[in-house]
C-alpha cells in the first residue's frame, strides 16, 4: 500500500512552491482511477504561488500501471493543454517525476468542486436540470473530439493507438486464464460488421458518469485522463451511452443522466458533422465487450487491501451480466 506522509509532503510543497511554510491539515485517500492512487489534501500555504490554494488532489501511479495508461507525466502535460483550451478539467500544478512523495511518479492538481457520484446527484434533478447537464457534457465531449493536437504532442498518446481497438480487445481476452466464447463471438461479430468510416480524434478513453464532477446541477469537471488516446470519437460516446454505465437509469440514454437527443444536439453544436450517429449501436457493443473484459480481469486482480479485494472479486461477477447484455444487443441489431 502506498503511503503519503504529511511531513514529507509539507517539506516538498514548501520547496516547490517557494512558500515560507506549508501546513498539511488533512490527507484522505479517495477511490477511483484504474491504476492510480488518489489523495485529497487540505493545506495552507504561507507565501509562495499556492498561497490562496487550500484543496489539492494528488494522483500517483501504481507499481503495476495498466497497459493503456499514458502515465502520470503525459497526463500532466495533457491537463495543461486542456486547461489552456478552457476545458472543464483540474488545473495541474506540480509534477513529482521521481516518486519522492509516494514512491511512484505523481501529479498534484487543484481540486474541483463537485461530486463524481453523478447518478445519485442527478436523482434529485428535474427534467430541465438534466437537459442542461446533458448539454454541458455533450458540449465538452464535442469540443474534445474537435481539438487539434500539435504534431509535436502526438507522442503523448501514440502508445494506445498503435494497435487497432479490436486487436487490443483480443489481446485482453487472451490474457485471461479461461475462455469466454461469448466475448470471442462478439469480437468476431464486431470484426465482420466494422463500420467503413474510420475517423480519428483525441478520446478520453474512460468517459462515463463516474468521471464527471457535478456541482449545483452543472458539470464542473472531467477527471481521470489516464486512458486518453487517439481513436474513433464514437468510442467515447458509446462508452458514455452504454446501458451498463447507466446504473438503472435506463431511460436516460446519455450516461443515465439525460436524453440522447439533447446530448447529440449539444455535441453537434460544438463539433458539427463529425460522427455518424447511426453507428452508435455498434460502439455501444464495443463498450460492453470492453467493460466485460475489464470486469473479468478485475475479478482476478490481487491486492492487500481487503475491502478493495472484495470489490474486485464482485466486479468479476459483473462479467457474465455484461455477456448477457452483449448477446441482447447483437440480437437486437440482427432483428
Amino acid at each position: 500500500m502506498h503511503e503519503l506522509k504529511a511531513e514529507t509532503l509539507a517539506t516538498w510543497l514548501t520547496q516547490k512552491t517557494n512558500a515560507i511554510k506549508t501546513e498539511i491539515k488533512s490527507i484522505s485517500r479517495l477511490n477511483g482511477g484504474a491504476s492510480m492512487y488518489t489523495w485529497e489534501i487540505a493545506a495552507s500555504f504561507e507565501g509562495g504561488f499556492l498561497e490562496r490554494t487550500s484543496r489539492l488532489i494528488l494522483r500517483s501511479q501504481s507499481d503495476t500501471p495498466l497497459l493503456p495508461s499514458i502515465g502520470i507525466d503525459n497526463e500532466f502535460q495533457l491537463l495543461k493543454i486542456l486547461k489552456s483550451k478552457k476545458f472543464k478539467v483540474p488545473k495541474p500544478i506540480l509534477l513529482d517525476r521521481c516518486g519522492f512523495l509516494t514512491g511512484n511518479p505523481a501529479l498534484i492538481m487543484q481540486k474541483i468542486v463537485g461530486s463524481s457520484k453523478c447518478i445519485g446527484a442527478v436523482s434529485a434533478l428535474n427534467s430541465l436540470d438534466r437537459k442542461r447537464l446533458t448539454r454541458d457534457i455533450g458540449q465538452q465531449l464535442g469540443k474534445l473530439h474537435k481539438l487539434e493536437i500539435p504534431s509535436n504532442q502526438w507522442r503523448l498518446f501514440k502508445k494506445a493507438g498503435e494497435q487497432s481497438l479490436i486487436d487490443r480487445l483480443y489481446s485482453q481476452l487472451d490474457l485471461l486464464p479461461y475462455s469466454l466464447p461469448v466475448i470471442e463471438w462478439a469480437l468476431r461479430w464486431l470484426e465482420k460488421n466494422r463500420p467503413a468510416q474510420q475517423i480519428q480524434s483525441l478520446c478520453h478513453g474512460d468517459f462515463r458518469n463516474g468521471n464527471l464532477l457535478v456541482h449545483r446541477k452543472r458539470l464542473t469537471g472531467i477527471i481521470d485522463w489516464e486512458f486518453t488516446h487517439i481513436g474513433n470519437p464514437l468510442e467515447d460516446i458509446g462508452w458514455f451511452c452504454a446501458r451498463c454505465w447507466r446504473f438503472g437509469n435506463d431511460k436516460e440514454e446519455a450516461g443515465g443522466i439525460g436524453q440522447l437527443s439533447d446530448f447529440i444536439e449539444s455535441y453537434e453544436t460544438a463539433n458539427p458533422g463529425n460522427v455518424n450517429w447511426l453507428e452508435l449501436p455498434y460502439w455501444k457493443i464495443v463498450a460492453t465487450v470492453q467493460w466485460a473484459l475489464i470486469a473479468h480481469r478485475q475479478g482476478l486482480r490481487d491486492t492487500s487491501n481487503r475491502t478493495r479485494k472484495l470489490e474486485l472479486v464482485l466486479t468479476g461477477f459483473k462479467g457474465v451480466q455484461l455477456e448477457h447484455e452483449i448477446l441482447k444487443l447483437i440480437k437486437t441489431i440482427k432483428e
Partner: protein
Amino acid sequence: MTDADQMSRLLEAAKSVLEEDIIPSLPSRKRLNALLVVKALSIALNTTYQMVRQGGKEPDKNNKALSNQIRSGVYDTSLNGEIIKILSQDVEERLEASTPDFKMHEKFSQYVAN
C-alpha cells in the same frame, strides 16, 4: 446431506447473522463494506443452490473448444445463427448460478472496482 447442501446451510446462517445481528449496529461508514460482504455471500449461496439442484456436480463445459472454433471462423457464415442459442444457454446458467436477481430486472448496479 451432500457437501453442497451443507455449504448452503453454512452460508445462509452466516448471511443471516451478518444481515440481522451485525449490520444494523454498524456505523454508516462500515455499512457499505458489510453490504458488499452480503453481496458476496449471496453469490456464493446461489452457486451452491445450483450445485444442489445438479446433484453437487459442476456442469461440464467445453468453452475452450468452442472459443477456438469461433476464432478459426467455423461459425463465420452463421454468426447470427444456432451459435447464439448455445451461447445464451451458457450465459443463462452462469447468471442463474451467480446473480439470478439480475435475470429478473436486468439492471446494472453501481458498485464497481476500477
